[in-house]
């Protein structure tokens, strides 16, 4: 992009901010965003869908009193941007019919800067035929395993450019690159389906280029995954009872997402998401006092982790990416916040506010909320377990609106008896209550098995927004968990 085009794009954001201020906003910011994405889906060696999308426009926030006004237009001209700014202020003013306390904003450094996701191999420059060949080949391998009915494989890439301007003087551009994908095998029985996925359910997404795809070695894992799916049809049902539960890393990543990540969102704690996503069992005056889990539990929200999906340079309020302690030695010490929520709660702003494209109001979003590794290994954990199961790869997930009562299903499990991995088990489920479950964490694998798992499909907000979040985790054990809930 030429410097002239760059100046124009900053100019549209600037015009939007000026329009909002002229219409009465006390603060305004705007983002021109251009997002390209490419998605390829293959089912049983046939390319089922191949699509590319480009969304571009400017979204502007205007603060008046107790309400944010937001308006977005896809028309990238100075006039349209200015009008969008005015419209944002107009809708903010309308909120005065049902007013609340004025929204304060925490101070953040006012910077001019540029950030780029480091990557080796531009995923959009990799030949489309190579990508298709990779997916077709994987599904061919899966289909070669007897008993497999469906073999699907997906790749998806995002290239996002943003030009952010605030009425306080921020001027920040970013270029973010994300790559993801995976595959799954489905075996279908008389009255059941069994599925295995790799690297995890819905694929593994990371920041970076096509090198992020290559390192997972799809072809080398396709046969094993297919065989496991086929074997599940004749595997024993996961028995009911209270037993030790060893979670594989990606399943633990989703467990962190649902029962820690959402619970610590300050907008939920403050009640801003009460009607839809829900609230939180956490109360802000308990921060620094409440025991969230066992002393082994250390959680950070770290937007600076190289390669993790929730990594960026600045959030969509212009706050620098940072690492924030969330749980330290089991004690709850931090939240996910933005400039408004942090100011209301009397906490430092965490730089965790992002919007889904140019046409959504930025909101509190997980960055990379991860469980720091321990000093063991999966092999050692299994060897140290007398009676339990080792459960891998998410199949279902459900949690209440306060983020306390959860039930997860995984694709597969293995019985663990007297320190040995035994028979395969199908339809494993487990259920629990957040702090009790986290309080039972007693073994964790070390840094060698620690992975920055990525969740590309986190829904929140009205209108709904899809967020991309990261969750670092390795295999870990929880004691005496209720397993094998039946329908």
């Amino acid at each position, binding site marked *: 992009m030429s410097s002239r085009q760059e100046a124009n794009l900053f100019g549209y954001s600037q015009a939007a901010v000026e329009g909002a201020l002229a219409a009465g906003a006390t603060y305004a910011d705007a983002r021109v965003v251009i997002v390209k994405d490419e998605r390829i889906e293959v089912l049983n060696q046939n390319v089922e869908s191949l699509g590319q999308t480009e969304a571009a426009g400017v979204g502007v926030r205007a603060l008046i009193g107790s309400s944010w006004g937001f308006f977005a237009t896809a028309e990238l001209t100075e006039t349209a941007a200015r009008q969008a700014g005015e419209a944002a202020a107009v809708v903010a003013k309308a909120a005065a019919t*049902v007013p609340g306390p004025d929204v304060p904003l925490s101070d953040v450094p006012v910077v001019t800067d540029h950030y780029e996701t480091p990557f080796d191999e531009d995923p959009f420059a990799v030949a489309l035929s190579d990508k298709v060949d990779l997916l077709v080949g994987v599904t061919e391998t899966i289909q070669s395993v007897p008993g497999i009915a469906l073999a699907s494989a997906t790749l998806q890439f995002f290239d996002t450019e943003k030009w952010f301007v605030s009425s306080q003087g921020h001027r920040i551009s970013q270029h973010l690159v994300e790559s993801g994908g995976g595959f799954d095998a489905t075996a279908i029985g008389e009255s059941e*389906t069994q599925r295995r996925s790799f690297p995890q359910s819905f694929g593994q997404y990371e920041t970076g280029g096509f090198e992020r795809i290559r390192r997972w070695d799809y072809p080398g894992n396709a046969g094993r995954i297919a065989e496991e799916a086929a074997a599940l049809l004749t595997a024993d049902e996961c028995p009911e009872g209270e037993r030790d539960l060893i979670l594989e890393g990606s399943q633990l990543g989703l467990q962190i997402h649902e029962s820690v990540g959402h619970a610590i969102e300050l907008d939920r704690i403050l009640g801003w998401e009460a009607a839809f996503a829900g609230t939180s069992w956490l109360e802000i005056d308990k921060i620094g006092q409440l025991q969230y889990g066992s002393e082994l539990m250390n959680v950070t929200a770290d937007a600076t982790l190289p390669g993790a999906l929730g990594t960026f340079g600045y959030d969509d309020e212009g706050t620098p990416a940072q690492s924030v302690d969330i749980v330290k030695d089991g004690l709850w010490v931090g939240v996910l916040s933005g400039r408004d929520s942090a100011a209301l709660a009397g906490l430092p702003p965490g730089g965790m506010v992002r919007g889904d494209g140019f046409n959504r109001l930025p909101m509190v979003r997980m960055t990379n909320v991860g469980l720091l590794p321990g000093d063991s290994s999966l092999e050692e954990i299994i060897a140290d377990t007398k009676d339990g199961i080792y459960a891998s790869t998410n199949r279902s997930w459900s949690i209440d609106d306060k983020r306390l009562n959860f039930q997860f299903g995984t694709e597969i499990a293995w019985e663990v008896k007297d320190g040995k991995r035994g028979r395969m088990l199908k339809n494993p489920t487990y259920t629990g209550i957040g702090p009790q479950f986290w309080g039972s964490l007693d073994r964790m694998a070390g840094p060698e098995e620690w992975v920055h798992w990525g969740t590309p499909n986190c829904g929140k907000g009205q209108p709904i927004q899809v967020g991309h979040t990261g969750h670092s985790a390795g295999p870990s054990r929880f004691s005496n968990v209720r397993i094998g809930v039946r329908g």
Partner: protein
Amino acid sequence: MTDPQALADKVIAMVGDRAEAEAMVVAGNRSLTRFANSYIHQNVGEDVPQIELKVVVDGRVSSAATSQVGDDALNRMVDTALESARLRPVDADWPGLAPQAEAADVEHWDAATAAADPAERASRVADFVAAGPGLRGAGYCETIGLTSAFANSAGQRLTGRETRAIIDGIHQTETSAGSAHQTGVGIGDLDGAAAGTQAAARARDSADAYDIKPGEYEVVLSPECTATIAVFLSAYGFNAKAAVEEQSFVEIGGQQFDPAINMWDDVTDPRALGVAFDSDGVPKRRVELITGGVSKSLAHDRRTAAKLGTESTGHAVPGSESFGAFPLNVFVGEGDQSIDEMIASVDRGLFVTAFNYCRILDPKSQVVTGLTRNGTFMIENGAITGALTNLRFTQSFVEGLGGGRVLAVGNDGRFADSEFGPGFIHAPSLHLASWNFTGGNDG
């Protein structure tokens, strides 16, 4: 606003004779006023068109989309789609473009809603909040006015417009919440005070809730719960792609449900929302999904119809080549009992006002886990005797509606929000013999 039909035609002309092509344009405005802690905290709007293009070069299919209407962006979209199509293998399942056909003459449109301003939405919110003095209100009021236009190189051209108006919210005490929901074509139909009054009453009534032991309980389910069930039946069962892949529970012609259960999809119903054609450019047809408890037919897009040797029912949605057709105008047939009559007939059971965070464990068995939310009540000797803390259930939805298990169907059908979005499931309350609750407040 750019004329969507002219824009769709222009995109097809840009492709010219280089490929078969179809284009869909959706344009208009979406505005939403959100409130929490009894005040408006977010007020948003957008005027963003969506232009989607599919091209087919010698059986090789590719799609592209943009939010930009300028010639540069449209040409880029066309070139991207053509270039990608040439590089991919032939799509063995491509069913061809939709032929010319007229759509039903329906227009679920209200001019006042399309033009609604933020003050009108705020006024409904004010009424909702005022109906719950001393409580904390949260929710949203939304107005949408959209025009959709389709064109393809086989000469099919269709256009339609739609409006939607929604108010959805909760009131909260320190320990409980109650909800209410209204969806319709026109903002004039929204009664913020009535919605707020219902939510406030349920919130107050569900305070001081107590735990009960999980297990099988007779239940009266609100329209919201019925809508959730209908979504799972539709997405994982009556979706023809699930049937093609043998992942569906549906056995056409089989008595899979109680005879009291009827379910169909019909955009021509005066109560329906949306436009009369799908994203393939096929006119929507009425589809009988369940009649007298018998599974009757599936919802198709052109791909599944071609595979099964039938005709599309007009239920393609963007992305349905991957996840299948989806009915967007579902009606669950009403019965003749009021909610009070259903509750009065229960000796010991539960009244559930909403399900939450429901996820499927296996599409073929339709076992779903989820929780209750915003008011769960104990019924004893025909009357509500107290409020319960939320419960988790793990239940096959097909078995839950099975023969002999539907004791009554309500006469209170309305658009209900299933947690998966408003405006596409019109459902009544249900009285069911048994529901499998597998966990309580403490796990």
